[in-house]
């Protein structure tokens, strides 16, 4: 029998970016931007824009990022479909929580950022086949980026 891989043990929690989505309101109005609230776990480090679709997440090189979704109504399906980001900054990988089909994405920040890097999240809502992409773009900002 081939040797099994040793489970890798992370040393710290990932920097989680959570999208709270009101799927019923987004589907009824066709507007995801007004029904999308982004949060991360780095507020005390300097992230801003909480509760808006334009969250600015403060990151450093080597940070492990994790994106997931919380629907406002647990009966309605919402999933993160894709993350469009400069692959020189981060290369998100789609994963599921073990034993489920609940999706999250993870990536490691590859370098310290000098300016803000915008990226795009897209979501699957309800039974609609085409993903929804908000107009507004969340950002990753570096450790020394000045906030206006």
């Amino acid at each position, binding site marked *: *029998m081939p040797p*099994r891989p*040793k*489970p890798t*043990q*992370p*040393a*710290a*929690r*990932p920097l*989680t970016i*959570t999208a*709270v989505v*009101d799927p*019923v*309101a987004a589907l*009824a109005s066709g507007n995801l931007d007004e*029904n999308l*609230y982004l*949060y991360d*776990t780095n*507020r*005390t480090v300097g992230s801003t824009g*909480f*509760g*808006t679709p334009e969250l600015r997440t403060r990151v450093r090189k080597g940070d492990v990022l*994790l994106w*997931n*979704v*919380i*629907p*406002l*109504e*647990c009966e309605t399906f919402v999933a993160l479909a894709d993350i469009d980001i400069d692959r020189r900054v981060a290369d998100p990988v789609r*994963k599921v*929580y*073990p*034993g*489920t089909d*609940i999706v*999250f994405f*993870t990536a490691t920040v590859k370098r310290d950022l000098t300016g803000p890097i915008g990226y795009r999240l897209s979501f699957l809502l309800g039974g609609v086949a085409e993903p929804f992409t908000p107009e507004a773009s969340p950002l990753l900002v570096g450790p020394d980026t000045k906030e206006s």
Partner: protein
Amino acid sequence: MAQQHGIIVLVDVNNALKERSLDGNAYWFDNMKFLGSTGEGTEKLTTIVPGAYFLDGSQATEQVLNWLPAALGSVPPTVPRNYLAEQARHTDQEALQGIAELAPADEAELGRIREQAGRRARRSHSSRSLVTSKVLDATGQVAGANAADTYNYPTPVITDITGPAVTEKIIYPAQYGSPDMTYDGWYWAATVDTSRPGVYAYTMHIQLHELVSRDDELVWEPVDLTCESYLKVITDPKRNAFTGAGLGVLPLPAFPPIS
């Protein structure tokens, strides 16, 4: 019956535990923005509750509120209800299989199995939650040697709802059991007296859980905190969201649609 209100409180558990406060660490939502709720996604949510009459003038039924807590930076509440227990059982089975295949006195392999089996935390007597005591991390894997730094924060638990809205008898909150798939079968709900318009504050009592090491053992230590939100009862009539009118039959087609 009018649509029930769902109110979600999302807690930044890491910061709340560090600061021992929910100030700035609790974000509130409801599904009534289209009726006029304000402060969605912020600390200051005011949930709108339309009044005592339907649009056609008939007396409305009381409004029902449901509260659900969630933890920021944790495995989301959309995983199945018994997720923690299933993961615990699954990893135990894998570890047992590893032991069965073990050559005698293989220390390295024993260490590997120990990591794979994860660590268990004892439950404090005053703790109100936690289906199983196996420690997972934020990606749903078992947390091994670094459990104290990587553990997944359990979903916050609502332990009580108090404040002016309760003492003035505007809401009658209570905890209910249900076959709900995602919230462990327990939830807090209330009915609202919609005949007295006004803004009423209420206090939510929330229990968080911190993993601490004591006597060479991991223990879930409960931390009780409170935060505040508001209900705004207005005199606008309730509406049926399908018809835009009062209660009554839905507009069915004159003949069954041909499939």
